């Protein structure tokens, strides 16, 4: 597995920030794609973090959905439209869920962790589908949001939402990088490699796993909240296994070289999907599958290895 060189991490995050600033000037449909990719990318980062510890979460959509629905329910039903409150709520809700599920799931590994997390996320899916008052499979829409009292007008709203997403994404990446250089973060890979040795050395693998689960949950909740804000709509598909699977695939395809890798990977994947839909509306799944296969066959360490290779050369 490719080792992460964290010394370059601040540089990569700065590059991401630069890209996002440039992104502001993209045509609006493409910028919107980038915006939702950032939201989804945060979830993929969460999955990627857990994968370092050998935990493959096939149900990360649960936290994504909890974040989105938290924003949605508070805005649409409790009338709270302040974006800061809403996003804090999204992170809090998903973190609490992460804590609860982390306590339950932190002793499972590999396929079993994957299956259990999938089962739990599908139970949430079932609950949301049954909830007719939440719109069941239709979901519901979210009213326009405000910033400490100021409600952006319709004309500037997309710009404001984009800037919010961009800033929060960069901050989240910085926080994640900080976490990864901390003790708990660095021990993740040790958990994946050899748990028993880790125990002999005095660390507690369960605690390391628990922490990574909670951090990933918080990131995913933020992603879900940002998505709710961007699209103005939430529905149970956010926690469906197909959505969760999408995050796992992005995390795998992007590789582990950097925290920004899943972000860019998610954006590229969405771009491929968009163009596949445009070029071949009847065969876009096939194109997507073929692209995935090629990346796996040609770039075993994920897309990020392209960056690493150039650096070594």
């Amino acid at each position: 597995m490719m080792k992460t060189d964290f010394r370059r991490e601040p540089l990569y995050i700065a590059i991401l920030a630069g890209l996002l600033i440039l992104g502001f000037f993209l045509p609006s449909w493409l910028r919107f794609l980038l915006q939702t990719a950032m939201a989804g990318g945060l979830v993929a980062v969460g999955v990627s973090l857990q994968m370092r510890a050998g935990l493959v979460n096939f149900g990360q959509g649960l936290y994504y959905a909890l974040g989105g629905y938290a924003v949605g329910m508070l805005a649409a039903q409790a009338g709270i439209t302040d974006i800061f409150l809403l996003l804090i709520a999204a992170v809090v809700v998903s973190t609490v869920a992460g804590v609860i599920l982390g306590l339950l799931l932190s002793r499972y590994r590999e396929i079993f962790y994957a299956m259990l997390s999938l089962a739990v996320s599908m139970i949430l899916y079932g609950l949301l589908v049954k909830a007719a008052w939440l719109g069941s499979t239709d979901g519901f829409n979210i009213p326009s949001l405000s910033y400490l009292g100021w409600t952006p007008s319709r004309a500037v709203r997309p710009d404001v939402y984009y800037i919010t997403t961009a800033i929060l994404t960069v901050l989240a990446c910085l926080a994640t990088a900080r976490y990864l250089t901390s003790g708990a973060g660095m021990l993740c890979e040790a958990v994946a490699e050899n748990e028993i040795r880790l125990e002999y050395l005095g660390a507690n693998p369960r605690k390391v796993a628990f922490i990574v689960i909670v951090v990933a949950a918080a990131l995913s909740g933020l992603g879900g909240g940002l998505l709710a804000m961007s699209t103005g709509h939430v529905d149970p598909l956010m926690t469906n296994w197909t959505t969760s699977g999408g995050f796992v695939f992005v995390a795998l395809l992007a590789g582990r070289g950097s925290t920004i890798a899943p972000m860019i990977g998610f954006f590229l994947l969405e771009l491929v999907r968009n163009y596949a839909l445009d070029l071949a509306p009847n065969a876009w799944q096939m194109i997507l599958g073929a692209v995935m296969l090629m990346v796996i066959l040609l770039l075993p360490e994920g897309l990020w290895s392209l960056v690493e290779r150039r650096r070594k050369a």
Partner: protein
Amino acid sequence: MKLETLTLGLAGAAFAAGAAIAQDGEPIELGIPVFLSGAASGPFGLPQQNGANVLIEALNAGEVPAPYDTVGINGRMVEATYVDEAADPVQEYRNLVEREGVDAVVGYTSSGNCKAVAPLAEQLEQLTVLVDCGTPQIFESVVTDPTYLFRTGPTGTIDSVGAVRYLVDTGVDMSRVAGINQNYAWGQDAWADFTGSLTALETDSEIATEQFPQVFAGQYGAEVSALLTSSANAVHTSFWGGDLEAFILQAAPRGLFARSAVVMTTGEAAMQRLPDEIPEGAIIGARGPYSYFAPDTELANWFRDAYEAEHGTLPSYPAWKMAQAILGLKAAWEKADSDDPAEIAAAFENLEFETPAGTVRMAIGNGHQAIQGIAYGTFAKDDEGNPTVENVISYSAECVNPPEGQTAAAWIEAGFPGAQCE
């Protein structure tokens, strides 16, 4: 798809060059999101796409009967871009509007997609015509003050209200009623409307069992057993597509249709697909006055014949709903006699226009939501062995739709105040 559109455009242009009536102008781009993949593509996407193609070709050639016998829309040729609504609907909508720059978006079947896209239509000030989508919530709560958003098809409310009325009017024993509906918004709403209508019409029904299998479950052995053991006299289902077909295949041989009056609110689509498996007497709905329930008008017969000539089968109800969406757009556009979306939208509001399925009135939702009547009948085979419907009862639009200003749920709960049925 692009090649077809190009050929269409060229053919249309050739005709336009020949016909002196046509004005000079760029073709109108319609963005048409329908299901091109997944389980809904066969029952919905395909007939909608076929129906759109038949209509657009005929419009560009000026072959549609009166009152639509002018070429194209307001003299301009029509071109269609089809996108898959199974993928990310919000992103795809933006792509259509901001990247492709279409003149109007006409489509959507899934209620979830309609709800997601509705506010976006208003935000981007894009003329949008929703074709299907069962949920009445679009103009009840999602977009309460619409300008650019329209729906030319009736909501799903009429299905259940009409079904109950039909069951009562044909004398079915309503003492024990059961339902089997897919466990998602569509099925849940349909059943809620059905049971609400039972209460409103004071049938004093006992709900013997209410089954909610997962969408696309495909295996209904246990559910059919439950329905059989429940001794219900009437069974309601809003199943569609592959689920409906599997249900028929699994329930009919076991005698469910013989033991109970089964009303299939979307049964019309299955009639052509399974004419030998649907038992006689099964109650069929078409979600409106479409297909076998269409009026005997020149427009209806033309559409049916043109579709059959092109595709070898009769058009099912999604094709009819797509046709009336495009015709409604044409009617509004030509009434406005302008290419300005705001003016077209103003003309569309409260519009009354003719369609192959009869008159459509944009009467509720502040003039943006269409109302239509509904008809139910029983399945039978005619003398040549072709599927048809008998014992047809039609209900007018004012009988099965809530009035302006009242939500469907409230209207049902209050017992259909203001309903005008003969």
